[in-house]
Each structure stands twice: as structure tokens, then as C-alpha cells.
């Protein structure tokens, strides 16, 4: 079925990103907006807007009934959930089906299978993808035999978690009881599911993921991304392709992701995340992200594929439009997440009204943003203001292009983390490539000479 009118159940930069492709394709657009976003840039760019509720996300962007009613008011024929919020909620996919709306994403059954981290692990293992030693625990008694195999430190993960939330590292047996209890109550509060599991903790690992597209029959991959530059499990800089992988390891990663995608009969755009132990040439399954991701832009830059357009084509019933042989990776791309955070005060969130917003422009530079001079950055949602993306023929060119682009970035009114990015880009360890997930925390703790800071 051809999509004529798309309802966007999201906000911020991803709402702008989806609007851009939909408008290029001649698809009419309606955006669901909360009271905090009535006057935001995405609301001005959409053909129509429907109010979905108050500012608090629980009563607007997370309210399935309100979202479905708004899509009905718009008489839309399809719904794009973006990322975060309800994007991986099987109940939204089912509600769309019941309301006669095309859900731009995987089937509800796939969302259920990969949203439960234990079931996702089982699928990965069945597809021949290595998983870390670990298992579910229902009681402390069950932990003891398991911990004899796993050792310390060990990660406690929420079965309903994901996206870096619901994780706790336990370093010693003395901490176990308290940490386990905290993890269970947190998992229950955050995900409505108290189940947790233990998994071996790998130090010095890299976070590498593979972008997939599937049409329930076939699956192709669009190469790797490296998202190891993280703070509190949240990604800060991403790049494509992952640097410094042996050709053999890269091939095994992409093959493993495709094998899992095929087993799930995956539909739409998705990502398989891995923990990579490059020194031992080994990798382990982490999770499947059954949605478009924040960092999809770096893959678009190196593959030349508009992933939102492919999502819409697949949702409208088209088979994959590209074969694996037609896909190739050109050059290298980096993405810096510009957040409303105060670098001088421990990256404290900094909501408020933007004064002016000057972004870089030029060859190989792309900026995905939802803010401009005068925009209000509400305290109700995440702090992502913009993604600066730099593409060049090789990694060194992309690093230089990004450093110059950051120097052109000047945002007033709210504090932004541009200086942190400049510092990372100037750091020899990051420039060499292949840093691990502990890198950023070490850099912040080391007090290693900050780079000459960018403007602002």
C-alpha cells in the first residue's frame, strides 16, 4: 500500500529528519505534539500538527491511546515512531494494526522477541551468534553457582531494559546483594518488569553495531558503526565504518547480524549491537535495536542510502530495493551529539531558551537539528540538540573536517558540550582509533590537556 499521509509520533531532531524524507517523497505529514512542543521547529515544518497531550511524556509521547487518536484525527495511513518513546513498544505496533495504520517498523512479534533481552539472547544463540556467559536469576541462591562460572565483575541487566538503561556493574561479592536488590527494583520501576539476568563483564570491549534492512524474506547489512565513546552508557560520538577491524572480524560481525536478522524474519531498519574484544578477535551479542537509531546518519553518509526512505518503502510493502552486491561503503563518517549539557559543571543538563544557533556548513558536513535561534529546549525530554556529521574520503579527513566544523558551531542561551567533542577529537588516543567503552571516562578523569576550546 502506498503511504500518502504519514503521522510522526516523535519530536526533536528525529521528527525533523523524518519530515525531510517524507516531504521529498511527496508524502503528506502530520506531527503529534505535546504542549511543550507546540511552537517548536518540527511543528512548523510539518504539514499539520495534532496536540497529543501535556508536556510530561508519560501523558503525551508515551500515551498509545493519545497517539493513535491523533493519527486518526489526521486521517493518516501510516505511523512512524522515530526512536525512544514508543518506538519499540509492541503494543503500539498492535494498536496501529487494529486502527488500520501501517506501522513503520518491525512486526509486534519481532518487537516482543527482541524487547525481552533474554529471548533476544536465545535467538542470537540459535542463529549461531556468540553470547556472553550468563543467565537469568530469580533469587540470590541461584546467583552463587552462576557466579562461580562468571566471576567478578559481573553485569546485572534488566530483561526489559535496553539502550544503555537498566545496567549495573557489580565488582565484588560484598556488593552483590545490595546491587541486585537495587537492580530489581529499578527494573520494575523503569520497565515494569522486575526480571534481571547476570552476564560476564568484559573490560576493554568496544561497542560495534551492524545496520540491517529486512523485508521479512531477505536481510541486507549496511556495514558497521563504532559507538564506543560513551558516558554512563550513553553514546557521545559515533563513526562508520568501525575503525581498525581486521577484514575477517568485520565480515564475521556483519554475517552474524544478518544471520540473526534472517532468523527473526526482520522487517524494516534495525541494528544488532555487539561487544567486541578486538585483541582476542572475539565478539558477543548485546542487543537488537528494532528502530531507526540516533546514529543512523553516519551509515547514510558512507552508504549513500536514505534509511528513512527505505523504512517507508518496506512499510508500504515493497521488497528490499537494494541487494547486498549493490551496497558499498565509501569513505568515513563521524557524528558528534551536541547536547544541552554544561561541560564545566559535570555535564549537567541545561534546558532553556536558545539565543542564537550557528551551525557549520560545507562539503561533507551535515547537521540534523531541531533548534534555531529562539527555540525553547524543554526540561521534559532528552538533551540532544543537534548531530554534527562529517564525511570524508578517510578517517583522518573526517576527523579534520569535524574539528573545523565544531569550531564553527556557536550556540548561545543554553550550555552545550561542544568543547568536550573538541577535546576528544584532539586526543591522540581517539585519533588513533579503536578506543574501548571505558575511554571517555578515563579521558574525563585524567585531566589530559583539554583541546583549545571551540567558540562559545
Amino acid at each position, binding site marked *: 500500500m502506498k503511504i500518502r499521509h504519514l503521522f510522526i509520533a516523535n519530536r526533536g531532531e528525529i521528527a*525533523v529528519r523524518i*519530515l*525531510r524524507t517524507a*516531504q*521529498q517523497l511527496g508524502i503528506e505529514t*502530520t506531527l503529534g505534539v505535546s*504542549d*511543550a512542543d*507546540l*511552537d517548536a*521547529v518540527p511543528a*512548523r*515544518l*510539518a*504539514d*499539520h*500538527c*495534532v*496536540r*497529543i*497531550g*501535556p*508536556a*510530561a511524556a508519560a501523558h*503525551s509521547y508515551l*500515551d498509545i491511546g*493519545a497517539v493513535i*487518536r*491523533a493519527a486518526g*484525527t*489526521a486521517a493518516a495511513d501510516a505511523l512512524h515512531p522515530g526512536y525512544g518513546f514508543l518506538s519499540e513498544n509492541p503494543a503500539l505496533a498492535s494498536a496501529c494494526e487494529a486502527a488500520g495504520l501501517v506501522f513503520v517498523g518491525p512486526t509486534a512479534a519481532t518487537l516482543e522477541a527482541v524487547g525481552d533481552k533474554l529471548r533476544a539472547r536465545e535467538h542470537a544463540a540459535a542463529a549461531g551468534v556468540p553470547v556472553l556467559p550468563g543467565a537469568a536469576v530469580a533469587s540470590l541462591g541461584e546467583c552463587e553457582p552462576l557466579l562461580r562460572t562468571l566471576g567478578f565483575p559481573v553485569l546485572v541487566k534488566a530483561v526489559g531494559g535496553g539502550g544503555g538503561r537498566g545496567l549495573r556493574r557489580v565488582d565484588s561479592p560484598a556488593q552483590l546483594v545490595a546491587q541486585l536488590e537495587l537492580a530489581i527494583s529499578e527494573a520494575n*520501576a523503569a520497565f515494569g518488569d522486575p526480571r534481571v539476568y547476570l552476564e560476564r563483564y568484559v573490560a576493554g570491549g568496544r561497542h560495534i553495531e551492524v545496520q540491517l534492512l529486512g523485508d521479512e524474506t531477505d536481510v541486507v547489512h549496511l556495514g558497521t558503526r563504532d559507538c564506543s565513546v560513551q558516558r554512563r552508557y550513553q553514546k557521545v560520538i559515533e563513526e562508520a565504518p568501525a575503525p581498525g577491524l581486521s577484514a575477517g572480524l568485520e565480515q564475521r560481525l556483519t554475517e552474524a547480524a544478518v544471520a540473526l536478522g534472517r532468523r527473526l524474519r526482520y522487517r524494516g531498519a534495525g541494528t544488532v549491537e555487539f561487544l567486541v574484544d578486538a585483541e582476542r578477535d572475539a565478539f558477543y551479542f548485546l542487543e537488537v535495536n528494532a528502530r531507526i537509531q540516533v546514529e543512523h546518519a553516519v551509515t547514510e553518509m558512507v552508504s549513500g542510502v536514505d534509511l528513512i526512505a527505505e523504512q517507508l518503502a518496506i512499510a508500504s510493502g515493497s521488497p528490499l530495493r537494494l541487494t547486498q552486491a549493490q551496497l558499498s561503503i565509501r569513505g568515513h563518517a563521524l557524528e558528534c551529539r551536541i547536547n544541552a549539557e554544561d561541560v564545566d559543571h559535570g555535564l*549537567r*543538563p541545561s*534546558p*532553556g531558551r536558545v539565543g*542564537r*544557533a*550557528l*551551525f*557549520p*556548513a*560545507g*562539503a561533507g*558536513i*551535515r*547537521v540534523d537539528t531541531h533548534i*534555531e*535561534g*529562539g527555540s525553547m529546549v524543554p*526540561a*521534559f*525530554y*532528552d*538533551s540532544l540538540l543537534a548531530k554534527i556529521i562529517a564525511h570524508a574520503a578517510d578517517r583522518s579527513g573526517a576527523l579534520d573536517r569535524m574539528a*573545523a*566544523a565544531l*569550531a*564553527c558551531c*556557536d550556540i548561545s542561551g543554553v550550555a552545550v558540550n561542544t568543547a568536550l567533542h573538541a577535546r576528544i577529537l584532539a586526543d591522540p588516543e581517539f585519533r588513533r582509533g579503536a578506543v574501548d567503552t571505558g575511554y571517555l571516562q578515563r579521558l574525563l578523569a585524567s585531566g589530559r590537556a583539554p583541546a583549545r576550546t571551540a567558540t562559545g
Partner: protein
Amino acid sequence: MLTHEDIEEILRLLDATPLDELELQTEHFKLTLRRSPAGRGWTQERQTRGEPNMLGAGTPPVASAAGPTASAAAPAPAGLNGALEIRSPLVGSFYRAPKPGAAPFVEVGTLVSADTVVAIIETMKLMNSVHAGVAGRVVEICIDDGGVVEQHQVLMRLAPPET
């Protein structure tokens, strides 16, 4: 909406000219491209024009819709005789307990010291602990659980500790 490819194309043309600035205006947007003062590359500044086109009634507004209210923004009235105030370090949502259903950190009458956690302010999905900052006995909790507060807004009042 212009894409980054469109802007690259425009800048390729501009780069061959001595021009330092270009302003493009349509009914939908204003885009200003400038050579950056550093002499390396260009900056872009956008303004989206036009008003949102609201459809239907949607979900009716809720009277208590979360959002800064007039009273929230008003300056805090003078405290009780000799009262001490605990103010919000950030704009955000005010929570009295560590998680839904749990016991509140403090009640009226609780004795606190400077480092006692008295509340949580959720800002941009991050939970920030609020410390009392001073010692005293809680005499008033000024905000309902889940209410929205401005930075520096008074959250609680304390009586000085009995000497």
C-alpha cells in the same frame, strides 16, 4: 526543506565568489550562510517561518497540564519568621520519593542536615538529588509531588534546628 546536499551545492558556487554572506528567504524559511570568522568553512543559521497548522481538537488540554505556571515563576514569598529555604538547583519535575510508591525522603517535621537528600528533580531524563544545604526541621513542602519547578524556586521551608 533544504538538504545538506543543497547547501553544499550553494556553497560550491559561493566559494568561487568574493561574497562572505548569503541570505536566502522563502515563505517557509530564512537561511543565512556566512564565511566563518576563522576563515575555515561556513556557518549556517536558519529560521523556520510560518505557524504550526493545528488540526482538530486532539487530546483536550488538561487544566493541570505540566508546564511552568504563573505561580511557579513568581518570586518566593518571604519565609516564616526565621525560616530557611531549600531551592531547586534546576528546572524540572519535583519528586518527593526515590521512586513511585516509595516513602518520601522527608515529611513535615523531619530533621535534616545539610547533606540530607530531600527530593529529586528530573531534568532531561536525569534524576538529580536535591540536598537540604542547611540543617533544620522541615516546616513546609511547597510543591506537590510531580509538580514542575523553575530553577531557584523554593521547594521546602525549614525551621532552624533547635538549640
